[in-house]
């Protein structure tokens, strides 16, 4: 079962599905060959038209799934998404390919590291963050069956992990520990899992959550975090502005609650164009660097007072 098979299954259940791409075929290269019955439209490198056409199809009762490189799908056609999809709340799903660190060595033009910041400003837009390819396949049916506009921060990297069933907006608990909580998503979830092992070597035990739904956010998890009052580390491949960390600050303030949040993200910088394995090994998201940042944070006397 791969991404194409999931689309095939979904189409069999709901023949109003139509697949659109702005010449981003990585996930759907053999779709036409394997499922010729699924309507497939490749508009070429024309993200605005992909979005506009999807609006017309959705207005007519179809359910378009639009593929594009995350950077250009969210930014090049941003105003089209706002005007033609979000404003009339049309049922269109956007699948953004190579978001965050997954742009690897392409350089800053391809880095979708403000995509959450942009997409969350649109009223009614749901945002989903599968942590790997397997998670994406698990999440996809639920996301497609959920009515309304959605953005999926796609992840094509296979991890071999079997993920639990996805129910919107629930997060997935990966491991348990009583000292701190780590929240992460996308390719940094696996790195966070390795980090937890390293922390255990030093007798620090961490909860680890795979945040699969950005909006709507998992309220059950929130209530737990409010109650526990543990240090919460938020590790993400996004600029700080519009990040999950900022999102939690906003939600907790609105809820009149306090969270001991510590952000580890890209701050205000584009990341170094490197292969993913090198980004994980030697850049700010290396286990060593993450470990030291967390140790410094939990030793912070201000935090202990809180």
């Amino acid at each position: 079962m791969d991404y194409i098979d999931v689309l095939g299954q979904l189409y069999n259940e709901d023949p109003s599905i139509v697949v659109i791409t702005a010449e981003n075929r990585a996930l759907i290269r053999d779709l036409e060959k394997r499922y010729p019955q699924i309507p497939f439209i490749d508009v070429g490198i024309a993200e605005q038209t992909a979005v506009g056409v999807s609006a017309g199809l959705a207005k007519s009762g179809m359910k378009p799934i639009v593929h594009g490189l995350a950077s250009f799908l969210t930014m090049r056609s941003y105003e089209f998404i706002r005007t033609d999809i979000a404003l009339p709340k049309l049922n269109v799903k956007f699948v953004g390919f190579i978001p965050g660190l997954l742009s690897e060595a392409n350089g800053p033009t391809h880095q979708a590291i403000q995509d959450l910041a942009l997409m969350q400003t649109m009223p009614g837009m749901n945002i989903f963050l599968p942590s790997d390819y397997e998670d994406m396949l698990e999440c996809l049916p639920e996301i497609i069956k959920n009515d309304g506009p959605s953005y999926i921060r796609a992840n094509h990297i296979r991890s071999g992990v079997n993920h639990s069933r996805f129910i919107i907006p629930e997060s997935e608990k990966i491991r348990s520990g009583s000292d701190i909580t780590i929240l992460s998503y996308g390719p940094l979830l696996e790195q966070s899992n390795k980090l937890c092992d390293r922390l255990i070597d030093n007798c620090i035990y961490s909860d680890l959550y795979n945040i699969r739904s950005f909006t709507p956010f998992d309220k059950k998890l929130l209530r737990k975090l409010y109650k526990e009052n543990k240090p919460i580390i938020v590790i993400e491949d996004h600029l700080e502005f519009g990040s999950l960390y900022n999102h939690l600050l906003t939600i907790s303030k609105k809820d009149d609650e306090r969270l001991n949040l510590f952000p580890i993200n890209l701050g205000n910088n584009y990341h170094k164009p490197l292969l993913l394995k090198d980004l994980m090994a030697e850049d700010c998201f290396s286990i060593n660097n993450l470990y030291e940042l967390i140790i410094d944070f939990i030793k912070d006397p201000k935090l202990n007072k809180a």
Partner: protein
Amino acid sequence: MNRKNPQFEKLTKTSLLVRESCLGMAYNGGCFLGASLSCVDILVYLYGHFLNCNKNNFRNENRDYLFLSKGHDVPALYSVLAENGFFSKDRLLNHLSGKDFIYWHPNTKIPGIEFHSGSLGHLPSVSLGVAINNKLKKINSKVITIIGDGELNEGSIWECLLVASSLKIANYCLIVDRNHFQANGPTEEIMPLEPLREKFISFGCNVYTVNGHSFEEMNQCFESINFNSPGTKVIICDTIRGKGIPSIEAKADKWFCTLDKEMYDNLLIELQTGDESGVQIPSTCVR
């Protein structure tokens, strides 16, 4: 405007009523009067004679579809819809009132509106999506989108034409309201479009040119087109900004007009007689 052919006498009368309503909105808070008046006869012809789209079949998927991408023409569109019974003409008096949704761009809260517009260069691709849907469902309806000539500055239109051409979509048509002006001046001074016909042809379109104020000529043109054949149809309607009111015809600074009572009365007489009154209409800069 053709006033001789009896077949179109009713449309000629409707055009006059529509222009009166547009003037009313310019008096009632101001509107894009010059832009709207160039499009009146096209809209009157389409809804009054050509399109299979009316108040009774508007929710039927087999109807013809009309999208107004050049959103500032909304006074003309709403007035035409009201004259064709989509909603009460009295509702036009709610122009800019907080109790209704009659503002300076089309929106779907008003009966007969297929899709909102305002941001230029959007509806060619949205309507292309509807045409693709129709093809998938074997619905043989025409999908027509009116765009402005100034709107052709938007790259998204040309991007969309490439896509439409590659998909060989039938029943997909763009009408250009070629009034030779964009917001602040003549198109050929701000962003030259000519040779426009050749541009569309090079994008794979079937192109037709017609006088957008003659019902007879429009009818000859539209009836001669095989919309059911594959390929984008582009109909360039040659029009005049402000058509029907001599004081504001073909004037760069009469895109948007706000009228007081004296101006309104004089322009109404101009509309009815065709004679310039000499009344001064102030320039309004809105872009």
